[in-house]
């Protein structure tokens, strides 16, 4: 019996339900100091002076540091480098030295005994800035361009010249981001005697962050131990290396005391990576039958004030993934990465795809109307068919070739349309005061980014199976999933498996949890390591039982002789084998390493591409401009669901976040570059009142050929096409000829669209 595919309760749940999770700010160290960051109140200017005299006089303040106290020239480097552009001039300094470029940029740090007093002192730091003109609209012609990328193939100009129909729209995607419910936190605990440093709070890519921190501090990386902690949501933003991730460990070493920084929500909203803000001018060329001849997207990407750890990965993903599931003979995606005086940007769940899917799918709906074709039929004609998969696109992304590796896109579209009809999505009658709209969008996701993940599996003398994964727990349920994979490979109950993640001492070669990679790449590494342990257990059992290996099998946590009913002579438990494999256990041969354990590395050079369809039904009140999402369906091909309940949870949660970006959430700025969304009153994340029950059709019809489990990622398929489906549904409700122009579709925007349609 396989534990893969079972709806097992999550290992993580009991501790979290009892309030016994270990989130960053739940951990404190004796003698700990607290840090408060002083941030720029101006969007752009020359930093003349920071006077820390008064702040330093506040009782209990241990230090106030500015850029002048730091080693010169410290910047946060790019983690995800895209070949080509040199971004070194656009990287963010740890503390601003002479120029400030956005409101919220770190200027100084106050450290003291009491966090309340630190806040008092931070307000006493006198900031002298000569303000400069701000750039807030990336479309301004003279706005600074950090990079320009082009991805594509074929003769696009010829395709457009030969087209029967050319359809164009413009679509702006609003600035929003992951905004996990737990703000960030870093605790650094120095040991003066050994020179070592214990760090709590660096999630997502702890080994990368450890190595980077070591380099910046001039410290051997093995002297830094990043501990695994619970994380209150990741979504791309948490766990990237930010200025605070250097400052707090540096201060702890300098002061010789533990230092903790716990971000508050106001600073989170201006400090953590923003995302998504793009302006698409997209066009498609069609023949007389509605078949796509060419696709051309010209994108302006607002990256905020600096290039952070993601470099230009989000803009690259945008144009690389834009053709989606369609047969596109000629394609050109051009994207200009512009710097503005706003919070710098990075990835947010389905980076580049939420944006690109919205632009492409909205264009297709406008095109279907112009070509007088059914919207689903237009898609069906252009989807790559099963016979065309695997489909190699002459595009690289994140350093990998883009090969759509598995699936039957038309079958999934048909299934989604059938399911929507079965559930009555198109049978909603007229309702007083509202207009109903139906919107559908297709998309391709990506998952399982390599190049490697490492896992160690060890059986202890109690018979427990310990998994040490390079993945990290960010709320997705990775402990449960990896336990199921290990149990399956090893032939034990999942309850016998304990999973450790995010700890650099336990797994020094981990590549982290991001890009929907953990189940695919991390899970495959666990599968390989657990399979190796199983083989080793059989080998040792053969010696103990004096039997031939081929006569043995693993069953319920023991190795047994096939067909032998005598449990004394024919059965040895994993616990007994682990004892036999101990240094003095009596069964090791010369030169063999002790222990019943294995380390394995799963390497993969290509990503695997799940896909799906979203269907939204909205009710729009043209009087108020309010959009209510009344029904929502996600159909998604996941290859193989290790735990279907968790896949469903990922999809539902993704939809909720997508609705935020489609309808409510926006980091807006006034003309001086002052952020206007600085509390949860202005930054409107959806509540249960805005998120409808989500219908799901999870398919396991197209196992991935790229990994031993056949799995594909589930983390981003729920959010990918929400902007697209909602934009299409609202357009349908309002009966627009063109597109909706921008997301989020706030009431004011919807009113504008309605009035413009009326000829207002």
């Amino acid at each position, binding site marked *: 019996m396989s534990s893969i595919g079972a709806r097992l309760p999550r290992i993580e749940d009991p501790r979290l*339900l009892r309030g016994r999770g270990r989130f960053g*700010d739940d951990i404190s160290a004796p003698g700990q100091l607290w840090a408060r960051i002083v941030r720029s109140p101006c969007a752009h200017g020359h930093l003349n002076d920071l006077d820390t005299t008064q702040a330093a006089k506040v009782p209990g303040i241990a230090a106030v540091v500015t850029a002048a106290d730091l080693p010169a020239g410290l910047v946060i480097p790019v983690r995800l480098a895209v070949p080509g552009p040199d971004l070194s001039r656009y990287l963010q300094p740890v503390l601003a030295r002479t120029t400030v470029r956005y409101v919220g940029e770190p200027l100084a740090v106050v450290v003291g005994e009491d966090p309340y007093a630190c806040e008092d002192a931070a307000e006493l730091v006198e900031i002298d800035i000569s303000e400069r003109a701000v750039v807030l609209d990336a479309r301004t012609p003279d706005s600074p361009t950090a990079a320009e990328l082009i991805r594509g193939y074929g003769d696009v100009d010829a395709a457009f010249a030969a087209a029967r129909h050319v359809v164009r729209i413009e679509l702006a995607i609003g600035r929003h981001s992951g905004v996990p419910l737990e703000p960030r936190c870093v605790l650094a605990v120095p040991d003066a005697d050994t020179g070592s440093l214990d760090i709590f709070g660096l999630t997502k890519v702890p080994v990368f962050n450890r190595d980077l921190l070591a380099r910046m501090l001039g410290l051997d990386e093995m002297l830094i131990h990043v501990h695994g902690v619970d994380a209150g949501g990741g979504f791309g933003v948490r766990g990237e290396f930010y200025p605070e991730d250097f400052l707090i460990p540096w201060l702890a070493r300098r002061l010789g005391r533990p230092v903790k920084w716990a971000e508050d929500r106001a600073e989170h909203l201006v400090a953590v990576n923003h995302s998504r803000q793009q302006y698409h001018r997209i066009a498609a060329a069609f023949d007389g039958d509605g078949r796509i001849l060419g696709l051309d997207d010209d994108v302006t990407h607002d990256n905020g004030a600096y290039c952070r750890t993601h470099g230009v990965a989000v803009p690259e993903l945008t144009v690389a993934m834009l053709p989606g599931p369609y047969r596109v003979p000629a394609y050109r995606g051009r994207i200009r990465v512009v710097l503005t005086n706003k919070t710098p940007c990075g990835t947010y769940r389905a980076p580049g795809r939420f944006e690109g899917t919205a632009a492409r799918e909205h264009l297709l709906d406008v095109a279907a109307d112009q070509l007088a074709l059914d919207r689903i039929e237009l898609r069906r004609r252009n989807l790559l068919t099963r016979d065309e998969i695997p489909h190699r696109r002459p595009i690289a992304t994140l350093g990998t070739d883009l090969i759509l590796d598995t699936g039957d896109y038309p079958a999934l579209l048909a299934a989604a349309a059938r399911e929507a009809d079965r559930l009555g999505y198109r049978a909603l009658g007229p309702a007083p005061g509202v207009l109903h709209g139906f919107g559908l969008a297709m998309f391709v996701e990506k998952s399982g980014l390599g190049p490697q993940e490492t896992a160690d599996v060890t059986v202890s003398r109690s018979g427990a199976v310990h998994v040490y994964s390079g993945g990290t727990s960010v709320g997705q349920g990775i402990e449960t999933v990896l336990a199921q994979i290990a149990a399956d490979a090893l032939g034990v109950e999942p309850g016998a498996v304990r999973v450790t993640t995010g700890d650099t001492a336990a797994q020094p070669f981990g590549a982290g949890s991001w890009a929907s990679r953990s189940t695919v790449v991390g899970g495959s590494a666990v599968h390989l390591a657990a399979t190796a342990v199983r083989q080793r257990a059989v080998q040792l059992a053969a010696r103990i039982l004096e039997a031939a290996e081929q006569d043995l099998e693993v069953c319920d946590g023991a190795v047994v002789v096939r067909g032998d009913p005598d449990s004394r002579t024919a059965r040895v438990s994993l616990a007994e084998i682990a004892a036999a494999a101990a240094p003095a256990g009596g069964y090791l041969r010369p030169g063999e390493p002790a222990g019943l354990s294995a380390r394995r590395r799963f390497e993969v050079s290509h990503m695997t591409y799940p896909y799906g369809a979203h269907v939204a039904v909205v009710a729009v009140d043209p009087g108020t401009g309010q959009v209510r999402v009344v029904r929502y369906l996600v159909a998604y091909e996941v290859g193989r669901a290790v735990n279907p309940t968790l896949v469903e949870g990922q999809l539902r949660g993704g939809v909720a*976040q997508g609705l935020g970006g489609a309808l409510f959430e926006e980091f807006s700025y006034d003309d001086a570059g002052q952020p206007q969304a600085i509390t949860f009153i202005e930054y409107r994340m959806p509540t249960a009142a805005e998120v409808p029950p989500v219908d799901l059709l999870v398919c396991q019809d197209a196992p991935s050929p790229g990994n031993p489990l056949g799995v594909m990622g589930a983390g981003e398929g729920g959010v990918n096409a929400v902007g697209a489906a909602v934009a299409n549904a609202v357009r349908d409700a309002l009966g627009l000829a063109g597109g909706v122009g921008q997301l989020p579709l706030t009431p004011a925007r919807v009113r504008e669209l309605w009035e413009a349609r009326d000829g207002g």
Partner: protein
Amino acid sequence: MKDLHQISLRVNGRHHELVVEARRTLADVLRHDLGYTGTHLGCEHGICGACTVILDGQPARACLVFGVQADGASVLTVEGLADGDQLSDLQQAFSDHHALQCGFCTPGFLMLIEAYLAEAGPEAPTAEQARELVASNLCRCTGYQGIVEAVLATARARRAAR
């Protein structure tokens, strides 16, 4: 000069006495002075509800209450819900209905719902009422569906057990 006050409060049935600054929030008192770190701070301005505790029988945002205001009060936090190793029915329903992912907002939801169910009495909420209740707090992971289902399932089970 700090403005210090001696206060006493009962947390999960246990008596505590301590000296706090007037401006110190109940959330910080619980988390950092008394070690009840299950009460989480998500926004510190009363919107997200992650810090919800039951204060003298009423759900309250612990970030909007000062410790001195809770002097003499009885507080129930998430650590007080389970009976030893046995999860409460509501906690179990959360797990059964996949009503949590990262678990950061979960303590606030549990305390909010627990207070609601205690006050609502035998009348189980309708699906609309459950959704309205759940709309009091923010969750960034689940999309709320599991939380709504856990409310309804717990309410049904409690009514059936009467």
